[in-house]
């Protein structure tokens, strides 16, 4: 392709919208359903304009019935459709957790392999807009805990553009986390960007001194930190987990075997978290490769406060990553 090396500038929001448009154009079985996805244009304006283009049968506004419409997405999926169900935020998804965990994740197994559930469930996660304690959390771990689900975290513009397209090709339920704080961020993607693979983690920056293992908004913050560290002569590698279930452990283990140090960064609360899982797997499988204990930078264990100055210090920022790595490398 002639323009493969050309890049375009795009917001994270627009990348998701382009993916939705591609998916709706490519397959008549695909439809989008969720609260305010149609006439309102999407709570975060992600689906603005799609109703006009595809009509109300394919862009379905739903009532405020998270369990009802997520369950309906599951039912439509087992009956031959390819629904994309948007749940406004991860906080609201708890109202549909029965459907996601007890139905979507179990039907294939309970039926002895007869009933697969090709549903895609998208939800916004994380903080960044002073939305306080019922709209701002990072609960990827709730879903990453569940066998039967595939859980994706779109930490880059390219993944925002491509993960949905890949998820729609999966025979089983896929939960995709998108990030409120990133919606307005501009990024560069190849002009011909489209579907991406969704099996593997990715090295977003190669380095030799320490592996920063992260996902979601942790990716751009870690890259920012790595650029700062480079000025100090520290060469950090940034691993974007991308697929939170099933985990691609070979990627981060290989990285740790190369750098011999690991810092796991996430916005979620520390206790019983994805970073705990990553740390544990490194201990189990690469302990003798380590030159320092595995460190973690996580969200402070508090329901998200409203004021900006408190919200900002509730999660790790690039500066925190820089400081922590300087400590680990005894660079102070």
């Amino acid at each position, binding site marked *: 392709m002639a323009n493969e090396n050309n890049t375009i500038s795009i917001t994270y929001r627009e990348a998701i919208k382009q993916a939705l448009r591609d998916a709706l154009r490519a397959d008549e079985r695909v*439809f989008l359903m969720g609260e305010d996805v149609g006439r309102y244009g999407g709570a975060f304006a992600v689906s603005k304009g799609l109703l006009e283009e595809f009509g109300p*049968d394919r862009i379905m506004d*739903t*009532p405020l*019935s998270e*369990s*009802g*419409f*997520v*369950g*309906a*997405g*599951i*039912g*439509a*999926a*087992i*009956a*031959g*459709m390819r*629904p994309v169900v948007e749940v406004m935020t991860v906080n609201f998804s708890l109202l549909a957790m*029965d*459907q996601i965990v*007890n*139905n979507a994740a179990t*039907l*294939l*197994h*309970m*039926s*002895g*392999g*007869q*009933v*697969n559930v090709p549903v895609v469930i998208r939800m916004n996660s994380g903080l960044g807009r002073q939305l306080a304690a019922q709209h701002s959390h990072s609960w990827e771990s709730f879903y990453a805990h569940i*066998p*039967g689900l*595939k859980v994706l975290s779109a930490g880059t513009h390219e993944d925002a553009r491509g993960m949905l397209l890949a998820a729609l090709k*999966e*025979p*089983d339920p896929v939960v995709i986390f998108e990030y409120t704080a990133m919606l307005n961020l501009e990024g560069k993607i190849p002009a011909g960007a489209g579907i991406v693979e969704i099996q593997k983690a990715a090295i977003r920056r190669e380095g030799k001194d320490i592996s920063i293992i992260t996902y979601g908004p942790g990716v751009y913050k870690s890259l920012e930190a790595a650029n700062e560290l480079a000025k100090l002569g520290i060469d950090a590698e940034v691993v974007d987990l991308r697929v939170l279930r099933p985990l691609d452990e070979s990627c981060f283990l290989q990285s740790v075997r190369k750098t011999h140090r690991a810092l796991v960064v996430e916005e979620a609360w520390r206790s019983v978290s994805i970073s705990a899982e990553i740390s544990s797997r490194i201990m189990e499988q690469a302990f003798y490769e380590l030159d320092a204990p595995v460190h973690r930078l996580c969200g402070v264990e508090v329901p998200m406060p409203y004021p900006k100055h408190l919200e900002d210090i509730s999660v790790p920022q690039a500066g925190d990553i820089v400081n922590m790595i300087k400590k680990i490398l005894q660079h102070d």
Partner: protein
Amino acid sequence: MENTIDRDHGKQMLYQMMLIRRFEEKAAELYTQTKIRGFLHLYVGEEAVAVGVMQALKTDDNILSTYREHGHALARGVDPGRIMAEMYGKQEGCSRGRGGSMHLFDAGKKFFGGNAIVGGHLPVAVGVALAAKKQKAARLTCCFFGEGAAAEGEFHESMNLAMLWEVPLLFVCENNLYAMGTALRYSHSLPQIELKGSAYGMESMAVNGMDVLAVEEAAIRAAEKIRSTGKPFLLVCNTYRFRAHSMFDAELYRNKAEVEEWKKQDPITALQNLLLEQGSLDAAAISELESTVETAVQKAVGFAEAGSWEPVEDLTRFVYSEPQNS
């Protein structure tokens, strides 16, 4: 019953109810012998609902059911041997032994469980019906649930969505008066479940669920309405389970006299008597039916006994689809 009934059709429905009854009695026996484990919820007393409703459904229609679903599966024509093998946990079972008594599946018969979160399959049924509408298929979806489920939020969300989206869905509420051990009067501010349809503008009716002919007639009418209008319908079948909620239930919440009173309305006895009175069957024909049923149940048990255990190496299969599913 004041109706008359075609001899062969009556005999067929009687056979199905008798098969369910005998199958369930056998299952209880096998449970005490520890051949069947886990939860076992028996359908004894409620046979007229499954058999009556099934008369209104076509082979292409979809069915979703509850954890008290052996009767629905049998009436749908799922092989009794595969159901029994499922309850044994054998890989020849209709869900390869992965589901057990509460999770009978047979995709070929369009039988989608066997769902054990009360009310949890109702939204799924809405979606299955929505898919048929989007595909412009004539398929109807039938969803069985108990009156206990009608207290769940998912019932109300599903009623609203089904009517709002006008999907071809038959809601069949089997009101057996007890949600486990909690009586209807302790769980519903409005105990006439059929009246809840009006909150959503949904047509509904209640029927004597102990009378298979009444259930059949109501279900056919409801199904015709759904097929002609595309809109959902709520059919409430007032029935009673003669046995305990599950094999763990000491039945402290209801008295024996009440159970005995309901047993006078036994749906099998009622249909037998009708067929005898109208001269369609004689005592010899009934005992012949009994022996056919006995043979079928014995054959099912034999099939389950002869079944095999899934190899332990297969433990983690069916968590995700295997390549041929994709």
